[in-house]
């Protein structure tokens, strides 16, 4: 693999420049910026306790009433220097799925325990950790779902590994730190990365773990990365991101993941002016597209890794116009030849553009949002739909044009009812959902939801696809759920 890459490099001058810039020049610039950013002592927070006026202030600064302290300068942490906080939640969600055919009803549940920790050993360093334990049973277990669909059967896997649990997992989801160095910050570790301001679909969110749209309200999964940010002042900033994990490789350790060419990265210039936030970005998204584990199951000695690299230019803005909020987020893939940028290659904007544009409006207890989505991976005709893209996580949509609508109404201060729907404008199918949420106590909330796919035969949200091999897929089902969540 290395030999092959070296050969490609020498035969493509532009690739050589790219490699030089991103693997030598960028780290060098980061080191220079770190040096120029100055010593930590130059940052403001350190002088706080030493100010003569501090003693004239009132109140207890070391003991924040309930025993949990707050920060002494704004930071990523909600604890003071030298302190630690542990908190989290326990949640159980029970789901009933209404199927077609003989099995009319299936049930499942997901139990989650998330423990969050914050440490702030000194004023300018913050560390965070999130431990996740999750047990998924019945219809919400992905292996059960896949097996019932007849895809990715794991019967053998489970039979050969009876000592392993296929129901539960325990993992450190986040483990990261931020070091505050004056006009320069650096974050590193396994951290959540969530690019973009669009509400439902973020075309510029291409570096972190790929998260399905249904899971967007849950925590963003952590990804190993280094994120330096430089704040030169005057309302703008430069952010670099170097990621050490590719999309689509699950938990496999793959030879290709050691190739620097397969490291995802991003560079973003951010600013704000005239009430709008702007970001212009350049990204390399990397997907693993080979066989699970890197080897063919039919011949376990045959390596079968393959990787897909795509370069994107991204744009993101959000602001307000009168009483309404507006946002636009888009990414455009560069012309490519294989896995390399090639500006002489064919390039059709309709095939490389992903876009979300939305408007939001709130008045009193009401909130309304509408978002138009254009998906380059989608097809104009339902005959060309490829449900495999959804199953693999490579795409969130099968069609090209979508409209997402959301409305919520709060009754009193705490009881909220929301309704949302996404409409495939190509085939006029839709997925609708309604949710009610009520926090009975500060740290105990109950929610109930109903979702229902609708659409004519052959449409996306009808969910039934003929694979042409005599097998049929049925991806969409109406379901109801009930969730109990307590924080501690």
């Amino acid at each position, binding site marked *: 693999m290395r030999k092959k890459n070296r050969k490609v490099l020498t035969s493509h001058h532009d690739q050589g420049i790219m490699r030089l810039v991103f693997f030598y020049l960028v780290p060098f610039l980061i080191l220079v910026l770190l040096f120029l950013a100055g010593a930590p002592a130059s940052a403001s*927070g350190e002088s706080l306790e030493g*100010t003569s*006026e501090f003693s004239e*202030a*009132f*109140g207890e*600064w070391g003991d*924040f*009433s*309930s025993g*949990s302290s*707050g*920060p002494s*300068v*704004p*930071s*990523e942490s*909600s604890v003071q220097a030298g302190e630690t906080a542990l*908190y989290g*939640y326990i949640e159980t969600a029970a789901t009933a799925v209404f199927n077609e055919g003989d099995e009319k009803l299936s049930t499942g549940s997901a139990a989650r325990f998330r423990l969050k920790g*914050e440490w702030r050993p000194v004023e300018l360093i913050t560390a965070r950790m999130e431990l996740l334990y999750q047990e998924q049973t019945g219809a919400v277990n992905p292996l059960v779902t896949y097996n019932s669909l007849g895809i990715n059967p794991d019967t053998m896997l489970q039979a050969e590994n009876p000592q392993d649990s296929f129901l539960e997992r325990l993992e450190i989801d986040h483990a990261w730190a931020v070091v505050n160095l*004056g*006009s320069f*910050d650096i*974050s590193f570790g396994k951290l*959540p*990365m*969530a690019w973009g*301001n669009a509400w439902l679909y973020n075309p510029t969110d291409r570096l972190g773990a790929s998260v399905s749209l249904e899971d967007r309200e*849950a*925590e*963003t999964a952590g990804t190993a990365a280094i994120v330096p940010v430089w*704040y030169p*002042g005057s*309302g703008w900033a430069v952010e670099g991101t170097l990621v050490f994990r590719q999309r689509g490789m699950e938990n496999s350790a793959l030879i290709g993941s050691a190739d620097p060419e397969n490291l995802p990265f991003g560079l973003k210039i*951010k*600013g*704000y002016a005239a009430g709008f*936030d702007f*970001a212009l970005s350049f990204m390399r998204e990397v997907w693993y597209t080979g066989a699970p584990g890197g080897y063919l199951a039919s011949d376990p000695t045959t390596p079968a890794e393959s990787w897909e690299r795509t370069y994107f230019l991204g744009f993101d803005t959000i*602001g*307000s116009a*009168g*009483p*309404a*909020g*507006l*946002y636009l987020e888009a990414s455009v893939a560069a012309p490519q030849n294989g896995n390399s940028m090639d500006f002489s290659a064919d390039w059709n904007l309709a095939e490389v553009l992903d876009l979300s544009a939305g408007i*939001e*409006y*709130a*008045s009193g207890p009401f909130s309304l949002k509408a978002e138009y989505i254009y998906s380059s991976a989608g097809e104009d005709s339902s005959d060309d739909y490829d449900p495999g893209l959804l199953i693999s996580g490579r795409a969130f949509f099968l069609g090209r044009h979508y409209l997402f609508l959301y409305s919520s109404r709060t009754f*009193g*201060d*705490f009881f909220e009812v929301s309704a949302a729907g996404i409409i495939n404008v190509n085939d006029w199918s839709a997925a609708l959902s309604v949710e009610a949420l009520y926090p009975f106590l*500060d*740290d105990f909330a109950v929610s109930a939801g109903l979702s229902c796919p609708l659409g004519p035969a052959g449409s996306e949200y009808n969910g039934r696809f003929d694979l042409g091999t005599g097998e049929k897929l049925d991806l969409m089902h109406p379901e109801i759920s009930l969730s109990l*969540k307590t*924080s*501690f």
Partner: protein
Amino acid sequence: MNMSKQMYAAAISIVLLLFGRGFLFAESADAIMARIDAKQSAETSQSRMIMRIYPNGYESDVREYHVESFGRGEDESYMVFVEPRSIRGLRVLEVGDDIRVYFPSTGRIRRITGNQKSGSVGGVGGDFSYEDAGSGSYCEDYHLSMDGEDGACWIIRGVPLDPDSTYSHVLFFVEKGTDRLVKVEYFTPENGHTKTLNNSGFRTAQGVEMPTTMVMINHKDSQKTIVEITAARYNMDIDEKYFNPNRFYR
């Protein structure tokens, strides 16, 4: 002479008709509110507060929030929710008219735009909207005029200069002699007098005077929200980058 007396009386009448309020109230509304702005002014500030929401107005039914708040100048504020645990780490950044909320669970930022500013701070409920809780200067945020007196208080009418404001006008009740803003009444075009804020427990720290207990009563649903400031300090060094919206994005 008689003619001259009549002319004098007529002149006085015209002046009173034209500028009567100015004569009746020796001080202008702008001057009074400018003094309050000056008393509450600080280059930077940090305060700890507890917000208690009484959804039904009953003392037994209460939701409690602990908030750490930072301010810089009149246009920049930064809040971190420390309690309850369910929203710990929720952050709100206000720079000028722009409000951003960071949700720690998703790692995403949401902009609070236009009419959303009438919603409760952080979306946690309660009667303090972003607009009520926002930093700023009375003199710069309102067109002020004297509206009358109420015993020991000046009553000053303020019309918000922000076209997106929820309120048609507010009435500031300023205690004579102490120049303390003891009460604010909020009026909306649709519902008239909707909320009343009562300030008490005034305290001066590092030359800055502030109320330490603020009770907001919502007349529409008989709900009340109490904010108690438990600690405050002023004029520390806080770098501008903490209020940089670009740093807020992470």
